[in-house]
Structures are given as C-alpha cells and as structure tokens.
C-alpha cells in the first residue's frame, strides 16, 4: 500500500505569538512539525506495519525550513520525504494548498491512502484534508480515531460531536486523524541523527506543471486579542464552608447562571 502523510511546519505551541506590523511574529520559538500531523505520521506508520509491502511518504508544502519537519517524519519511520517549495506559494490559502498537494500526490504516482492531521496550529481551519479529497475525487473519511484496511477498502471510526461513527470507503481515500489513533512514536537519538542527514527532494510549481493558485481567502487585518481585564479576587475565609459560601455568592452576583 502506498501511504502519504501530509504534514506542515508551524511555530511551537509554547511560542508567544504576536501581531507586529501586520505580520505574525513568534519570536525565537522553534518551528516544529504541526503536532496534529505527528498523529498523521503515526497513523501512516501503523498502517504500514499492518499491511505488508507498504511504504510511507511524508509530503509537505512550505518554505525550505520545512525540511526539518519532514526530517522528524523520517525519524519517526517514514520511508521518504518530499518538500514542495516555491516563492510563489507564500500566500497560499487552504484550497490552493489542496491543489498543490493533489498535484504532488499525482506526481508521486498516486496513493492508496492520504492521511492528514485534523488541523494545523497556525491557521487552524482544518479544511485542507477535505479540499484535497475533493480535488483528487477521493472519498473523504474525516476525524478517524481508528483505521482498518481490508480487501481494497478502508474502515474508520470517526469521532464526531455525537459519538463514534463507523464509515467505510473504497481505496484510494483521504483520511484525517484525531488523537485517539495513538500517541506518536518518539524517535531515538540515533535515528534522529540519521534523518538529519537525509537528502530531501524539493519540487517547485514548475515540477508539478501547476500555476500558483491565487488565494481566495485573504487576511485584511491581524489583531492581538484584547488582554482580559481580569483582576483576580482570591476568596478566603475561616473554614472551607465559609469560603464556599462567599464564592457562590460572588458567582451568583455575576448573573451568569
């Protein structure tokens, strides 16, 4: 089975992110593989192990620096990694990213399964998986908590607001996965070192025979959220009961119940 895990590089979730001169500034925080996409790589590796003769390709659209995220996927166990990078892709929206990913997947020679994380930490829209499926005309199985491949079909347990739904489709298919797929494996130091030396091919738009998709969704303004004017009031009292009584009175006075 040919499995492609689509990943993105984002600022670390510990980063203090600020809007500065209309741009996003994350200071000196490191760029890392999008944490949700680690689950996509983990799911891809689990499927490789469960289906003999399979291989995992990690695919990323991003700047040259995104090779580091791909190296993380290699260290986790991906067989190969491909970066699509082009200066013309700087203001890509999710539909544009889907077109680029679909073209790259076709250039790879197609896939039986394309796996995404549920969303990215930066934009967080969570649209790219379904849009890639739409461009490829593959079925979309979103928010999978477990995956089972059998006889050319894939069955997932989809985690939705109301519970769990079992959905199946014929391969090839696009999947997005949630955390219950299992914790991403942690690569050993030796493997990380080996992956750090990997030579990762970089494809430009011309390699994909694609013109730069013009973004439809455009940012007009970037805002630092207003700092909440919370002045904390620590409730104290002689006994827990006295504290509880004061606290409950204060909460009821807020008229939020």
């Amino acid at each position, binding site marked *: 089975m040919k499995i492609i895990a689509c990943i993105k590089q984002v600022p670390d979730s510990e980063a203090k992110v600020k809007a500065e001169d209309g741009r996003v500034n994350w200071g000196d925080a490191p760029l890392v593989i999008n944490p949700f996409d680690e689950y996509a790589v983990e799911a891809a590796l689990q499927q490789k192990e469960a289906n003999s003769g399979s291989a995992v390709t990690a695919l990323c659209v991003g700047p040259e620096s995104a090779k580091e995220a791909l190296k993380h996927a290699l260290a986790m166990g991906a067989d190969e990694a491909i970066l699509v990078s082009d200066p013309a892709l700087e203001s890509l929206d999710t539909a544009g990213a889907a077109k680029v990913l679909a073209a790259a997947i076709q250039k790879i020679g197609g896939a039986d399964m394309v796996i995404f994380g549920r969303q990215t930490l930066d934009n967080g829209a969570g649209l790219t998986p379904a849009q890639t499926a739409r461009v490829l005309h593959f079925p979309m199985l979103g928010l999978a908590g477990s995956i089972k491949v059998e006889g050319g079909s894939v069955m997932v347990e989809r985690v939705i607001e109301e*519970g769990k739904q079992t959905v199946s489709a014929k391969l090839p298919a696009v999947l997005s996965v949630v955390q219950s797929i299992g914790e991403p494996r942690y690569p050993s130091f030796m493997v990380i070192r080996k992956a750090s030396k990997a030579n990762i091919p970089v494809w430009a738009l011309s390699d994909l025979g694609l013109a730069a998709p013009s973004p439809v969704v455009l940012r007009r303004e970037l805002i630092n959220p207003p700092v909440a004017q919370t002045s*904390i009031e620590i409730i104290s009292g002689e006994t827990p009961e006295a504290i509880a009584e004061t606290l409950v009175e204060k909460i009821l006075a807020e008229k939020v119940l």
Partner: protein
Amino acid sequence: MKTFVYIDHFQGAVQPASWEALALGKSLGAVSAIVFGQGVDAVIKSAFEYGAEEVFVADDPALAEYRAEPYAATLSALAAGHNPNLILFPTTARTRELAAMAAVDLESGVLTDVVGMEVSGDEILATRPIYEGKLLEKTTCGGKIVLATIRARAFPKPAQTLGASGAVNKVEVKAEALSEVKGYAASESAVNLGDASVIVSGGRGVSNNPSLGLEEKETAQKGFELIGELATVLNGAVGASRAAVDAGYIPYAHQVGQTGKVVAPDLYIACGISGAIQHLVGMRNAKVIVAINKDADAPVFQQARYGVVGDLFQMLPVITAAFKKKLGK
C-alpha cells in the same frame, strides 16, 4: 444581502449554533435555511420558528446519513443555482468538511470558526482566532459566494416563534456517494463543550490526594466524580486539561484547550489545573473564570476572576453544597 444557513443536525438533533447562524444571517438581510436528511420535518419546523423566511429541503434516502460527497454536491448545486452572497454554517465535524468541499466546487473559500462578522461595502469581513487563539484575524473571501462557519456561542441566539412557517422549496439531490456509514455508537458521556454555558474542568490535581490511599487513577476518578457533581448542579458539562486526558483520567472528548475544544461558556471552573498556555487559550473567553488550586502561584490564577487556594477534594463538596442551597436544589 442574501444569506443561506445550513442547519446541521445529527439524526434530527440540531447543533444549536445553527440557530445562532440563522440569527446572524437575518441581521444581515434575507435569510433562507437549508435542511438535508431524511424525515426532517421537525428540523424544518424549527428552522421557521428560529427565523428562516424560506427553507430549502433535500429529504431523500440517499441523504439519510450525513456523508461528505452527496451533501457537498447537493449543496454546491443549490448554491450555484441561487447565488446567495453568503452561506453560513455552525462549526461542527460535518460542516468543516461540507463547507470545505462546497468551496472547491464553487471556486470560493471558507472562513472558519468565525467569532465576529461585519459587512463593509461589498465585502464580508469575518473575525476568527488563529494560532490557537493567540491572535485574531479579519479575513475576507474573494469568491462570488462566501462560505463561513461560525463558532458556537459567539453570536446571539434567536428567540423561537412557535408556529411560524413559510415556503418549503425542494432541492434536487445529487446522490453519488463514495462512502458508506456502517454504524454509530453514542459517546459514553455525551459531552458538547462548545455549547455548554457552564463547564467544570479538572486537571492533574484531581489525582493528588494521598489521604485517600488510592491508586493514581482511582483518585482521579474520585476527583472527577466531585467535578461531575458540581457540573450537574450547575447544569454544566465536565471538561479536562490535556494533562488529565493524557494521564487517562477522562476521555479526549472532554479536553479543553489547544488540542481539544476551544470553549466560551458563561462560567468556567478550573479545578486542579495549573494553567498551561495551551489550556488557557482554550478557555480564556469564558465570561467568568474561577480557579481552585493548591498552588497559589499556578498560572491559572492570572486568568481567573475568582480564585480559591485550596484542595479541590476539600473545596468541591462544600461548593456543590453551597450552590445546592442557594439554587434551591
């Protein structure tokens, strides 16, 4: 402005933010509701009662279960035939996919998790959180038909006018499906944090009570029982920090924060949660935040309106009792 609002439901149970989307659409001009499924008369009735002027309905066996492809194709064809300026959705697992696909069909884009909307000239400007809520952006969509999913509780809920009705228009169904729904299991603890007006959450601290003499997980279970009792008295939902979920104290569906659910309840009570940034961005839009923690230096106190420095095992039962008394329960 002509707005279509997609009413998202699961087996007839409507995601309440659908009605908030309907009210938002109405505030911008003419509003029609879209209802897909099979046997959806009750949903249509509610759509009129919550303010729809007309309802577009695809009631068909092929749409009995939500599946991305036939729903998206049916929606895209409907939109292309009527050219609304805007299609609004509540943000749910289903609509994220549905809107994403319809946007590809309509050569447009989706503004997701919208928390504010304004119209300036011809342009619809949507405010949405990005970078886990650390930033906000105002975005616009250059497509002829703009698609937007709104975050639950970000816009006012409309009043219900019982008995209201209007025109029901049949929609042509595009039935081609690429997947098959095999089964469904309700979550063991039905939890919808996004719509909850009160959330009581637990963190690592729920397992910290050596005096019980129990194993870590058993202690945590006791802690979450106390949290559940308070949540019940307040008609609220039970939340959790990532630490509590990762430690296996409670299922993922309860997780609040960056990798869980971003919530905005009226009241958020954080118990034994130290307040990692990933958690704080998930709950800081709550109207009133209360923190209960043993550690007076815990960062959670910097976000809270009221704080209690104390042991949750000691405090929660007396707080629950005090609420019961005051609320007459």
